[in-house]
Structures are given as C-alpha cells and as structure tokens.
C-alpha cells in the first residue's frame, strides 16, 4: 500500500511550500505551492506555534512580508491577492499600535482589530480540511474500477452532454459564424482626416451639430472611434466649442463665429 502511494503524483501534505533553513535574512525555500495568501498565513501561524485567536500580528506580518519579498526575488509572480492580505495585516498592525480612545466610554467594548481576519482564517481552514477530505476520497476512488467500455456505451452518448459541452459547441458555432461574416462584408474605411473634413463641413454648414445624432448615424465601432477622435481634434484645433445647454442635455458642437 505504501509503495503504491509513492506512485501518486502528489501528496497532499508534502505539497505545501516549506521554509527549510534560515540564516540571518537569507531564507531558503523548498518551493511548492501555497493555495493562496490565507494558506500562507495559516502556515506561518502554525510555524510560530501561535494561537490563532491571539495572533502575534507584528511577527506574523514581518514573516509574511518577508515571504513575499523572497517570492519576488525568485521572480515568482506575486499574485495581487497576496498583496491584499499583506495590506490588511499592516492595517491591523497599525490599528493595534493606536492607544485606546480616551473619550470612549469606559464600558465600551473595543473590537479586536484581528477579529475579522481570524474569522476568515477559521472559515478558510474548514474548507482546506474539506479539500483534504476530497483528496482522500478521490485517492480511494482511484483504486476502484467500473467495468470496461462495452459496445452499447457508444449509443448513449447524449446522456453525457452537459451545459458546458453545449456551450463549447455553441462557442465554436459562433466563432465560425463570425469568420463567415468577416469574409462577406467589406466596409469602407474612413480615415481620421476624412472624418474631420466631413465633420467640419457639417458644423460650419449648420452652425452647430448635435453629437449624439452624429454618432448615431455611424455604423461600425471603428467609425465611432474615428469620429470620437475627430471631435476631440476639432475642438482642439478649430474654433468650435462643446456646448451643453442644460444638465443631461445633448452635447452640441458649435462653430464660434456663428454666434
């Protein structure tokens, strides 16, 4: 049984990262994978043999930040999620340094700044244990074999389709459809210079132009983007102003010399 376990690709307990040796500020890491920042935090708390309900926040924060520094030095991309927890740790640390508000009522209960984090850690730890349970169950299940495939299995293929499969197929169809459209339709592309010229003609002919109406007359995203840039360009270079007659009203491009 033991020899068999060696064969498995990973062992739940061995796979967590481990700080092997420590010499001054140099830490050697046995690389593994922490499932996330909370996992790392639990590991550090356990390493310190600290009580989870009374976390030595300064020490744990230092170690946590140290670990992140090492990850960076080893060029491991430090996920943003690790930094979120780092920020939270620092915040808790600073809140714990603050003296008690002298104006606060005597009997007023001060909530431990660590409480929220502790609650989260406890909740997380339950699911970590549940994950371990699943791991153990799947190991047992891997030692159980149903019968081999027989002829009739093939004929029941539809039973195996899930929504996910349908979505995959649907996405493929959509992708194919998209390609077809691409091949069929040729749109004339309008350059920024043309768009500016066009826009200028319209503004100076009428004295003003409602932007919303102008944008609505355009069809493709590309035209819209070009038009938007053209509007900005005209306002910058020509004697044209952007006007809004009242809050939430349509925005109007107005030629300045036309009053």
């Amino acid at each position: 049984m033991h020899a068999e376990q060696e064969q498995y690709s990973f062992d739940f307990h061995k796979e967590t990262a481990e700080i092997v040796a420590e010499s001054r500020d140099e830490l050697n890491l046995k690389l593994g994978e922490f499932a996330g920042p909370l996992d790392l935090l639990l590991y550090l708390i356990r390493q310190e043999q600290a009580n989870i309900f009374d976390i030595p926040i300064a020490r744990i924060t230092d170690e946590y930040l140290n670990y992140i520094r090492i990850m960076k030095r080893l060029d491991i991309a430090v996920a943003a999620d690790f930094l979120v927890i780092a920020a939270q740790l620092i915040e808790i640390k600073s809140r714990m340094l603050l003296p008690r508000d002298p104006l606060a009522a005597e009997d007023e209960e001060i909530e431990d700044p660590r409480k929220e984090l502790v609650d989260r850690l406890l909740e997380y730890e339950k699911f970590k244990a549940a994950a371990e349970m699943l791991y153990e169950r799947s190991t047992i299940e891997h030692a159980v074999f149903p019968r081999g495939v027989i002829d009739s299995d093939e004929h029941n293929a539809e039973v195996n389709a899930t929504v996910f499969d349908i979505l995959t197929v649907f996405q493929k169809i959509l992708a194919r459809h998209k390609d077809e459209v691409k091949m069929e339709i040729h749109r004339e592309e309008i350059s920024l210079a043309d768009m500016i010229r066009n826009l200028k003609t319209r503004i100076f002919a009428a004295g003003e132009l409602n932007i919303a109406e102008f944008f609505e007359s355009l069809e493709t995203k590309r035209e819209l983007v070009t038009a938007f840039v053209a509007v900005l360009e005209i306002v910058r270079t020509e004697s044209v102003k952007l006007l809004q007659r009242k809050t939430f009203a349509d925005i109007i491009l107005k030629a300045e010399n036309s009053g």
Partner: protein
Amino acid sequence: MAETIEIIEETVETVEEKQPREVADLSRAVEALIFVADEPISTRALADVLEEERDLIDSVVEELAESYEERRGGLQIRQIAGGWQISTRTEVHEDVRRLLKSRPSAKLSLAALETLAVIAYKQPVTVPEILEIRGVQSASAIKTLLEKRLIVTKGHKETVGRPMQYGTSKEFLIHFGLKDLSDLPSIEDFEDLVSPLT
C-alpha cells in the same frame, strides 16, 4: 432558471408478458442491468425497465449488494451518484492497474481541490463568493473543474452584475464515491479538526 439538463433515464420498452417474477429471477436481471449500464443506474430506472415496484427493486438490489459483500470476491455493488454501480474492490487495485497498464489519472491541484470544496459546500456559489472564502482568484481552478465536468453552471445570481453560479455535477459524485450530496460530511465537522483551542 437553473440551466441544468435533467438526465433522462431511458426507459426501455419491454415486450414481455406481464407475469409476477421470482425474486431470484429479478435479482439476476438487476445484476445484469447494473453491469450493462455505463453509469450508476437508479432504482427508478431499474424498476421502469423491469416493470416492477420500486420498493421491490430496492430490496432486491440491497440484497444483491449484500451477497457481493458476503462473497468477498473481487467485485462490489455499491450506491454512488444516486444509482447503483458494479466495480472492482480497492483490495485488488494493484493487479487491475497492472492489467490495464494505467497509472492513476492526474490529480487535481491544491487550488482546484479547495475551490471544489467551496463549491461543493456552498453551492450554488459565485466567483466573488469563492474569492471571499479562499482569499485568492480561482478562475483557472474553475476552468479546470468545468473541463473535468466536476462542476456545472447553475444560472446567474440575481444581484449586481448577475454573476454566474456554480454547483457540483453528477461526475463529482462519481469521482469522489458519493451517494449524493448529503453523503458529504458536514462542513461544521471540520471545525473541531482544524482549530484546537490552546
């Protein structure tokens, strides 16, 4: 609203004359059907095929499973994913694997297992809710779990942004050898295990 597909058990029309069947005869038939079915077969499906009462089939299957236990052979009949399945026993897995030349299939990563645990206990659950518990993005783990069909989408949650909800699949029950979701130990049971008060 849930976008799940009900798996429709096919009812095979039998053209046999309706005659009360002996229990021994039924037991034979049930054993054969469980063997032939490519997925765990429910007592309802068995009863439909055999045109018998479910209660009767229930007791027949249970007796059959028990007889397998008593025989202590290489096979077992067990309840899994809401149905009955015939499979080898764990004791013989090394020999079976040698014949099939199969290695244990790739295990799920720690992140995927954790994500799966959260989904199993909190379903239907959204990505932000999983993030809240795990403290880390789970997008790639969710993708893996979807690909392995261990989880399925369960429609959108009617809240800001209408996030997609996820739940476990029948494959999940099979993969982890569970009769149904209530077969999972209660999440509160893990509480005592993890945080010894010091």
